[in-house]
């Protein structure tokens, strides 16, 4: 169970990206985070694994307050939270398999990283994850030789290497075409269903939300403006979330 309590983030410039946001995510839920560009979706997801330091509020995960964790504890918490990014964030010049193995860094002893050594089990596991997302044949290619869809699968494989209990996906399909978008979303859905991993996924397209999400939270200018089932988003709610002038498409 992830509990967000009065979460506020004010950036150095004074921008209030999150304003007193509270909601819960039960284990195993697929939660969509929606909202206009600049509404604070990325900020919210990054506060959860503290890539961004929240200004105020609490993030309780199974009772442990993430915002209070020491660097050492943070390392243990982060390794259980996989993250998938809009721009994939692979290390371009490294091989695909190295990128996937990097998901294990929170577990391995840092001293061995100096020598670029991973345990045998991890390497096997990495090949298995690549198989699972369907690109085992690309293991020894350089990451930047892959297409966008393939790169995102590597990103998912990397997250899976962490044995995550939760995956944060920040617009994982925003840079992909609709067909690829569905294939990536299906991978996330499968991970959510078969492995029982909670997924927090920010999305721009409502049809994806309807198709994949169990529940939705919506942000507008940092404030939580909607929390409920996808089908509850009617025209009025839609205008609350996206503004008065927004038109529904698709």
């Amino acid at each position: 169970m992830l509990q967000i309590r009065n979460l506020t983030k004010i950036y150095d410039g004074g921008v209030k990206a999150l304003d007193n946001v509270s909601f819960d995510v039960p284990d195993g839920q697929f939660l969509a985070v929606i909202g206009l560009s600049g509404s604070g979706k990325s900020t919210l997801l990054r506060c959860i694994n503290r890539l961004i330091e929240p200004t105020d509020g609490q993030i309780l995960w199974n009772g442990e307050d993430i915002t209070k964790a020491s660097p050492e504890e943070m390392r243990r918490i982060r390794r259980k939270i996989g993250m998938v990014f809009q721009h994939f964030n692979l290390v371009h010049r490294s091989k695909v398999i190295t990128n996937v193995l990097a998901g294990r860094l929170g577990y391995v002893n840092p001293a061995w990283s100096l020598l670029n050594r991973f345990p045998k089990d991890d390497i096997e596991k990495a090949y298995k994850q690549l198989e699972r997302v369907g690109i085992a044949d690309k293991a020894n290619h350089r990451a930047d030789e892959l297409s966008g869809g393939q790169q995102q699968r590597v990103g998912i494989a990397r997250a899976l290497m962490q044995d995550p209990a939760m995956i944060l996906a920040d617009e994982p399909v925003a840079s992909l075409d609709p067909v690829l978008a569905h294939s990536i979303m299906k991978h996330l859905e499968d991970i959510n269903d078969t492995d029982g991993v909670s997924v927090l996924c920010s999305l721009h397209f409502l049809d994806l939300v309807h198709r994949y999400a169990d529940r939705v939270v919506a942000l507008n200018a940092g404030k939580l403006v909607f929390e409920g089932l996808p089908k509850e988003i009617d025209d009025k709610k839609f205008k609350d979330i996206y503004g008065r002038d927004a038109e529904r498409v698709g």
Partner: protein
Amino acid sequence: MKNNKKASPWKSLQIGLATLLGLVVFAYGFQITQVNLEELRSEKRQESLVRVTRALAQPEIFEYDQTEEIVNQPFYVTCPSSGSETNIPEPDTSAPYLVITPACANPGDIVQVEGFNFAPYTTGPVRFVPGSDPTNIVSLGRDTAETDGNGHFVVSMEIPDRPSDDVQYIRATLKKNVGAPHLTQTAYDTWDKIVETVFLALLATVFGTMLAIPLSFMAARNLMKTVKSPLTSIALSTLGWPIGIVIGFIVVRWVGGLSSGLGSNIWINLASIVITPVVVIFGLRWALPQEETALPGRALQITRLGVILLEVLIGFFGLFQLAALTMSIGKSLETSLGSFGFLGYFLFQVGDIITILTPALGALAAGGTLSNFMGRIGQLASEKLPMATTKILNIVLSAAAGATVLGLIGQLVEWLYQIGNPLYVLWAPVTVGAIAGLLLAVFTKAKESLPIGLVIYSITRTLLNTMRSVEALVMAIVFVIAVGIGPFAGVMALGLHTIVSLAKLYSEQVESIMAGPLEAIEATGANRLQTIIYAVIPQIVPPYISYTMYRWDINVRMSTIIGFVGGGGIGFLLQQNINLLNYRAASAQMIAIAVVVSIMDYISSVMRERVV
């Protein structure tokens, strides 16, 4: 546009004024730099210019062995009054001889010098030898003789203004090349020095690069910005450095003593070199498990720490043994290998370097480790202890750290300037440091994370920028004073300059890497070291290589002139020859420099293309 047109008279006036100002600046510049074309036109200058240019065009690279026939013919300048020409003996006509007509003359007269019986087709100077000694090496005049197929020549020469009552001489020195051309001594010397030059550049580049890489991370804002620590941790890790360095130095030196106590028996050395790595690897494998899901218990942690420490000591012991072995092998090779003795010399030096550097390495390693360890304790303390206790702890530790740092700086000043007054170089800095630390602890929140990374970043940047503005040549002068004339001073100077300039360039590359992968690796739970290895390094490899190549180019160029100030390499020879007006030799060295620089340039551009 309209505005521009309106203001155009003003603009013209401005341009006019700027031009005038420019003219004045240039006029002043001409005066200051003493631009004087008159000097170029003067006949004396032109003559020497021609001479130097000609010499430069004939580099002293190849030469022939020569046979030389020298004949000194007695000669009177101003004829003796009594007409006693009989003083001059008849020449021996079976050997080469000279006939001068007339046999005596006044200064300024033209005489005809005829040579017979010389070897055919030889050339050489015909000169007047003043004084009454035929072996005198001083000679006057610039006439050149050239024999025909019969070994005969005729030259007209003007008699210089050297009247004397004694007999003087006219000397013909005819030379003939024999055999094939071969390299001159200058060529051999140049080769020696050019090799020295290339290796000077190589060593400076390698050492400079190795040290510049870690420095460049410290000078990269994007990496250091996120480094934050509570004051307890900062103070403790600051204290950890000096304590660790002292302990490390003492302990490693003790290990060194242990090692040399075993004597330089090759078999013992060999055995320890084989055994220690095995022991170390197995020990570390056990003490540093590759992956662990559960936190180990206290007892296990402490045992592991002990094992790691022991392994490190064993490792250092192995290093000392390795040094002893290389030194003894080097020594025996140096005598037995003959012309490849330099390999033995190299091994011996490597061993020596290891012996000297190991305690320093141990000191640094211990300093870093202890600092890291104490920092963690500080982190833990500030997490676990209550607010008030932390505050008091902070005040004490921060004051101690401040006092230590400033005290050490004071001691450095004392060592540099020998002020000799402990009030200024010890008590005052210690007090100021303590007060500064105290104030810092009082005015920050006890458990707040302070941006220590940015502080380190600023200090590193400032240091780099200051040092970078010092020319390598100036550094060379300093090092020549410190370690004496020779290539070692050059290596140090070029190495230091390489460190500071590369660290700056590298750090700019680190600052421009993509932030995405960094964020992604951090999100997996990787610590700082792992983030650098997996997200930063892959991104900076190509620019690092190309900058290193670029620096290698610069170092080769610099190393050719660093000898001008005594830093070794070919510059030393070049400067010497220029000062001795030996332009043909200087020309050979200039050609060597040009060849080496262009070859290096080519190699580095090829490699850059390959790698990047």
